[in-house]
């Protein structure tokens, strides 16, 4: 993907577009602080959207029952007046501070080579980064990015190869169907003859299998064979626990996502058991100007609740205001009565 080489300058940079990151846009926006958000997922909403979009949540104040996706949709509507900019499907790899006092800035870089310069950073990364689940196959690390891939970045890279795709969801079936025309051969492996993928993909896959254009086998991969990261075949276990070998030189395992702390550990912040300690007045980390809100932070009495994250966002925004507008006195105002705030929300009479 080609990125504009320009540096994106922003008041606040929010890492994580889950419910807490979204509500931070609102609290910052009321204080005239513009925000950009970055999330590793290709969609907005964090765990609410990825793990439980349809599951009801019962402890959001004012909502006896609301689904994860509804909450995300409502938050998006709530922050609309502040026009946040989203950068999705990108992981923040580097975060460093430079300058002092009013000239203090945070330089942020993503794995998509996008660069930011922010006056403050709010880490709202929840359980960390959603990363592909790696199957516990011995030595799989030495094949990764050479002949084993957890995502298809360039379809052409699979041309002429014997590709084994493992999984039964949309990623597995979509790529099996997509790579079939250009690959030497495509084999789809799944642990059962039932697929979670969209029905039309399943139908298309079965059609290709019936035509002999694609192979479908049932089982699980247990071992890899090859040398220098170049795969030659995989050992497999069938449903009846018998074993067999399958020749292939590309393996694509699609086992969904898992949460890992990821690069956050390398940003020079104090950490405690993979969480970021903060104070309970400003929710600031050990580095002034970098805040941590929501599930990613820790402090005495911390509860990993969405509502706690909302409160933390509001207080962090107050301190952020002091960094961004050091000369301005902050007046505490209510959205119910302040014409000034209502103008910002676009609801002033």
């Amino acid at each position, binding site marked *: 993907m080609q990125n504009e080489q320009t540096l994106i300058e922003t008041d606040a940079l929010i890492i994580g577009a889950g419910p807490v990151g979204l509500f931070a846009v609102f609290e910052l926006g009321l204080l005239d602080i513009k925000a950009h958000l970055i999330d590793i997922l290709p969609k907005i909403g964090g765990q609410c959207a990825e*793990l*439980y979009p349809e599951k009801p949540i019962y402890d959001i104040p004012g909502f006896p029952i609301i689904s994860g996706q509804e909450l995300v949709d409502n938050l998006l509507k709530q922050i609309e007046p502040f026009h946040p900019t989203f950068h999705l499907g990108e992981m923040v790899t580097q975060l460093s501070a430079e300058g002092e006092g009013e000239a203090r800035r945070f330089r942020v870089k993503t794995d998509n080579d996008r660069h930011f310069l922010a006056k403050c950073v709010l880490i709202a990364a929840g359980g960390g980064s959603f990363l592909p689940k790696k199957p*516990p196959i011995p030595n799989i690390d030495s094949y990764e990015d050479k002949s084993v891939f957890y995502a298809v970045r360039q379809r052409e890279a699979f041309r002429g190869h014997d590709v084994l795709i493992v999984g*039964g*969801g949309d990623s597995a079936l979509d790529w099996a169907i997509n790579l079939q025309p250009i690959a030497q051969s495509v084999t789809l492996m799944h642990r059962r003859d039932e697929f979670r993928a969209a029905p039309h993909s399943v139908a298309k896959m079965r059609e290709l299998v019936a035509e002999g254009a694609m192979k479908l086998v049932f089982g*699980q991969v247990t071992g890899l064979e090859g040398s220098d990261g170049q795969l030659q075949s995989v050992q497999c276990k069938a*449903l009846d626990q018998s074993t067999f070998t399958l020749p292939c030189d590309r393996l694509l395992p699609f086992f969904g996502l*898992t949460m890992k702390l990821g690069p956050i550990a390398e940003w020079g912040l104090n950490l405690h058991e993979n969480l970021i300690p903060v104070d309970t007045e400003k929710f600031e980390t050990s580095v002034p100007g970098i805040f941590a809100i929501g599930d990613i932070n820790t402090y005495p009495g911390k509860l990993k609740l969405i509502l706690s994250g909302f409160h933390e966002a509001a207080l962090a925004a107050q301190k952020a205001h002091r960094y961004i507008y050091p000369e301005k006195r902050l007046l505490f105002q209510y959205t119910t009565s302040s014409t000034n705030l209502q103008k910002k929300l676009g609801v002033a009479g």
Partner: protein
Amino acid sequence: MVEVNFIDHAGEQNKVSAKVGMTLMEVAVQNRVPGIDAECGGACACATCHVYVDPQWQEKVGPAERMEEDMLDFAFDVRPNSRLSCQIKITEALDGLVVTTPERQS
């Protein structure tokens, strides 16, 4: 109260008491049983509370439902006696239940 035995992949036993009505995952987390990650907190959304039900207990525990089977696709080394512990409700009939935790959850 009933007793549940979590055996890890190395054979280490971990007998804990469980309240009827809780899920097996909750019992594991409450007793800090190693080998159960339960990343999603019981929403049947992550497959990191995977256990193997002892063959002698399979019938009493019963099979996985459709949503759980779908989620088991994300688990590793899935066997015919694989279940997600967040979907197993503790009942009096499960007193003495034996399950094994896999080598890795993710």
